[in-house]
C-alpha cells in the first residue's frame, strides 16, 4: 500500500484513494481533424513505457477527485514528486 501525496489536498493518502490515468503530458490535439492517421495513432496509442522515472496522471478519485501528475520510478514504485495538472514536469526529477 503506497502512500501518495495529493498536491491539491497536500496530504499523503493511501493508494486505494487514487486511480491511475496513464502517461502524463500528452495533450489532446486542438484540432484532431488536422492530424493524419499516423499522427492520430501516435497521440492515441504510442506511449513511452520507460524503465525508471515516468511522468503519469493520477486522480484522487476517493478524495478531492482532482487529476494531477506524478513522477514515479517504475522499477522501485517510488513516487519522486507529484504536481498539479498544467504545471510542467519538474526539472531534475530523473535519477
Amino acid at each position, binding site marked *: *500500500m*503506497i502512500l501518495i501525496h495529493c498536491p491539491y489536498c497536500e496530504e499523503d493518502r493511501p493508494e486505494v484513494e487514487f486511480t491511475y490515468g496513464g502517461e502524463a503530458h500528452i495533450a489532446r490535439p486542438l484540432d484532431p*481533424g488536422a492530424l493524419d492517421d499516423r499522427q492520430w495513432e501516435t497521440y492515441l496509442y504510442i506511449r513511452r513505457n520507460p524503465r525508471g522515472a515516468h511522468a503519469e496522471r493520477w486522480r484522487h478519485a476517493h478524495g478531492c477527485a482532482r*487529476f494531477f501528475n506524478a513522477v514515479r520510478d517504475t522499477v522501485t514504485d517510488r513516487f519522486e514528486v507529484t504536481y498539479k495538472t498544467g504545471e510542467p514536469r519538474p526539472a531534475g526529477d530523473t535519477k
Partner: protein
Amino acid sequence: MSGYRLAAGGRIDRSRPLAFSFDGQGYQGFAGDSLASALVASGVTLFGRSFKYHRPRGLVGMGPEEPNALVTVDRGPARITPNLRAPQVALHDGLQAKSQNRWPSLKFDVAALNDVFGALFPAGFYNKTFMWPRSAWEKLYEPVIRQLAGLGDSPVARDPDHYDATYAHCEVLVVGGGIAGITATLEAAAHGGRVILIDEQDELGGGALADPVQWAALDALKEKLAAAGNVTVMTRTTAFGYYHQNFIGATQSLTDHLAPADASGPRERLWRIRAGEVVLAQGAIERPLVFNGNDVPGVMLASAGRMLALRYGVAVGHAVVVMAAHDSGWRDALALAGAGVHVAAIIDVRNVVGADLADAARDAGIAVHIGCAITAVHGRHAVTGVTFAANGTGPACKLACDAVLMAGGWTPSVHLWSHAKGSLTWSEAWGAYLPGTPIENCRAVGAGAGAWDMGHGVVTAVLPSHIDVRAQKAFVDFQNDVKARDIHLAVQEGMRSIEHIKRYTTNGMATDQGKTSNLNGLQIASAALGRPVEQIGLTTFRPPYTPQTFGALMGHHKDALFQPVRKSPIDEWATEHGAVFENVSNWRRARYFPRGGEDMDAAVLRECAAVRRSVGIFDASTLGKIEVVGPDAAEFLNRMYTNPWKGLQPGRCRYGLLLREDGFITDDGVSARMADDRFHLTTTTGGAARVLGMMEDYLQTEWSDLDVWLTSTTEQWAVIALQGPRARDVIAPLVSGIDLGAEAFPHMAVREGTIAGVPTRLFRVSFTGELGFEINVPASEGRKVWEEVWDAGQAHGITAYGTETMHVLRAEKGFIIVGQDTDGTMTPYDMGLDWAVGKKKPDFVGKRSLARPDMGLPGRKQFIGLLTEDPQDLLEEGAQVVADPDAPMPMPMIGHVTSSYRSAALGRTIALAVIADGRARIGQTIFVPMPGKVIRATVTAPMFYDAEGSRLNA
C-alpha cells in the same frame, strides 16, 4: 519408536499434562510443547507422505522451514485447517491432528507405489507426459494427479470463525524476537517513539530458547521490554509480507493455541503496519545436507534436534549420529550430549576440524569420523542405521542409530528483505546470500544479516558418495520431492536460468517456498552448469513468508461486507411484492415479479403483455445521473457526445451517445436540458462512475477553460418509469403544474412540477416503445410517490415489471444496451446509430478515430435482428453465427447473438446480433450451430414492433 522425553530439562511445564490425538491415536504432552515435540517425545517418527512419491517422511525442522510434517488440525466441524507445520502448532488439551496425503493410512499408503516407479517421474514429468491428448487432461490426468499429489483437504463447510483486521503505525518495527531483535527493540525504544516487536513463536527468544545458558539473559531482556513504556510486543504474529514504503502485513494468531472451550473472540488478526524504520531480525535457517537416504524419517536438522532437547526436553533417539559440514553441528552434538542424549558419532565431511571441537567430542564419549560422508541411510519408516565412508568413496562402515542430525550450515532468512527489493550479496564465508543495500528505510541485524559467529563450514551441501548420483535418493526439496539428479537432469535438458530450473524441477515451489532447498538447489545447479553460484542468482522471494489463512486476508470483508449492495428507494417495496432480484454492477435490481408459482418466462411474458396492453411500473432509480451546470455546459456536452447539444431547447431531451477517444461506444443515455446552463444527464447503470470520471478527466485536464460543474446525482433521484398506453391516465390525477397533453408535453420533453405533492422532474421518454414517463423525485420521497402511482394505477390494471421485461420490451424496439449489444469494439455506424452522430460538428470525443480507414472497411460487424425459422427456438446469447454450417473446420464465424428473448407482443422469439456486413444480409438466412442441432434464422432490421413509432408518440 526412537524419540523419548528426557527426565529433566526444557521449558515445558511437566506439572500440566495435555492429552491430544494424532491420526485418532491418543498421546500426551505437556504445556509448552508443540505438536511436533510432543509427538517425537511419544516415539512418533512418521509424520507424513511426500507430495509426489508418497515416501514416508518425518520431521526435519522445528520452525517455519519444516517441509514434511504438515498436518491437518481439526477444531470441530468447519474448523479444519490443513497444511500446518507440526513444530508451529502449539499443543493444547484435546488437540486433534491428522497426517495428510496418504490413503488408506499413514503407514500403509497405496500411492507409495509412485516411489517404486519413481524413475517414471523425473524432472519436468508433468510438462512432458500430460501434454496430449488434450481431452485427457480434464478427464483423466488432472483428477488423478489432484488425488495423488495433494496436500491437506480444505474444509467443505463455511468457516464460522471471525477474523479481525487493524492498522498500526510506529517509528520502528522489529521483526523477529530473538536476542538480536530484542536488543534492537530496546535500542530503538531508548530513542523514544513507538516501537513494535513481532515474533511468530509463542514466546520471545528465537534460537536462544534452545540454549539454556542464555535463558537468564533472555529473562532480563524481557523484563526491560516490559518496563519500556513505548514498546508493543506481539508474539504468535508472523510478518508475511514487506511492501512499499515500509508497509508490513502480519497475521496474529489469537485462539489456535487454546483449547476450543477457552477460545473466544476473533481467531486471527491481520495487522497492516506502517513503520518509519524496519529492523529485520529474522535469524537463519539451517541447511540440510544432500545425501543418499536423507529423507528417511529420523533424519532431521541438527538445530531441530537441539531445539527438541533443550527447549522441549525431548531426545530425538537413543543413538544419534550427527552428519556435519559445519562447526555448529559439533556444538549441537555437545549440547545434546550435555542434555543426556546419547550421541553415537559425529561424521564430518570436512578433512580438517578444529581441535577444540574434536577434543570436546571425544571427551563427551562421541565417536568422531572426520573426512567421511554418509552414503546410505537404512530404514524405511524410521532410521535403523547409516553407512558411511571416508570421502564418501572409501570402504563402507555401518553404524546402528535411530536418528541422524544434519548440519549443513546456515541460510540467513532474507525473505522480507527481498520482498522490499533490497539487494543481496553473495557471502563465500556463509555460502549464502546476505542482505546488501536496502531500498526502503530498513536494516537487518543478527543471524539474518550474517552478523553472527556461526563457526566454520563448507559451502557445498552435497555430500560425495561412491553411489552413482542417478541411483541416489538424495533429496533437495523434501516437500516437492526434488532430488539432486532432477536438477542435473534439468541442466542436461537445457535449462540455464535458475528460474527455469526452479519451474522445471519445482525445486523451491512448495508451500515452504524452498526455505531448506533453495540454496542447495542453487549449488547443485552451479556445479552442473560449471558457473559460480553468485553468477547464477537467486529465485525471487514473494509474499507470503509462510502460508496464511484466507480468513485473515479477508478479515471483515465477507457476507454483507464483502461487496456493498446498493439498493434503490423502491427495494423494500419490491421485496414485499415478491420480486426476484439480480445484481447489476453493485446494484440489486428487481428482475421480475412472479405471481402464484410463475417461473421467470411466464412472469416476463405476463409483464410484457401488461405494459403493451395497459400500463407497467418499473424502478429505474439505478440509472446513472449527472447534473451538468455552468455557462459552458452545452459546449462541454457538445464536445463529449456525438450528438449536437447547443441547439437543444430547455425542456427537451436528447439521446446521447458517448464514444471513447478510439471511436468505440462506451455509454449512452437520455439527457434533458433543464435550463440554458443546466442539464440532467443519465448514463447506463453500470457506467455512471466511469462516465463521470471520463468527463472530469476532459474537463480538468483538456478543457479547463470551460466553466462547467459536474455532480453525481445518481442516488439523489428516485426514478419511476411508467410505461404503456394508460400511463398518462394514471398520473394525470397526481400531477400538478404540468400540462400532460400530447402536444404540450411531447415525447422527449421534460417538465418540472409536482406529483403527489412532491417536486418532480418529469421526463416523457420511453425505453419500451410505449407512451411513457420517467418520474424523477427526491430519493427520500421515492417510495411514497411509487405507492401513490401504484394505487392510482390499480384502476388501469397497473403491473410492476423488472429488468427482464425491460430488456425484452427494448429489444422489440431494437434499442441497444451498451455492454450487451456492444462490446467495446462497436462504432455508431456498426450499431446503426448514424443519426446520433453530429455530422457538422468539427470535433467530439472519438470523431477523429471514426475517420480512420479501418472504421469504414467492409466486413465490420453490424447490428441486426434475427428471427429463427422455428418461432419457438430461443437462441442463446453469445452463440456464434455462421454463414455456412457445412463449412469445414475451423468454421468461419461471422458474428454472435447479443440479445435473445421470448416476445409476448410477437408471440415468438426474437434476437439481436452483430454480424459481418449485417445490413447487407437482411432477408438472408444465417445459421447458429448449437450442440445437437443447427438453428436457421433470418436476418432482419433490428426493429420488431411499431416501426413507425405511433405508440411512442401517442
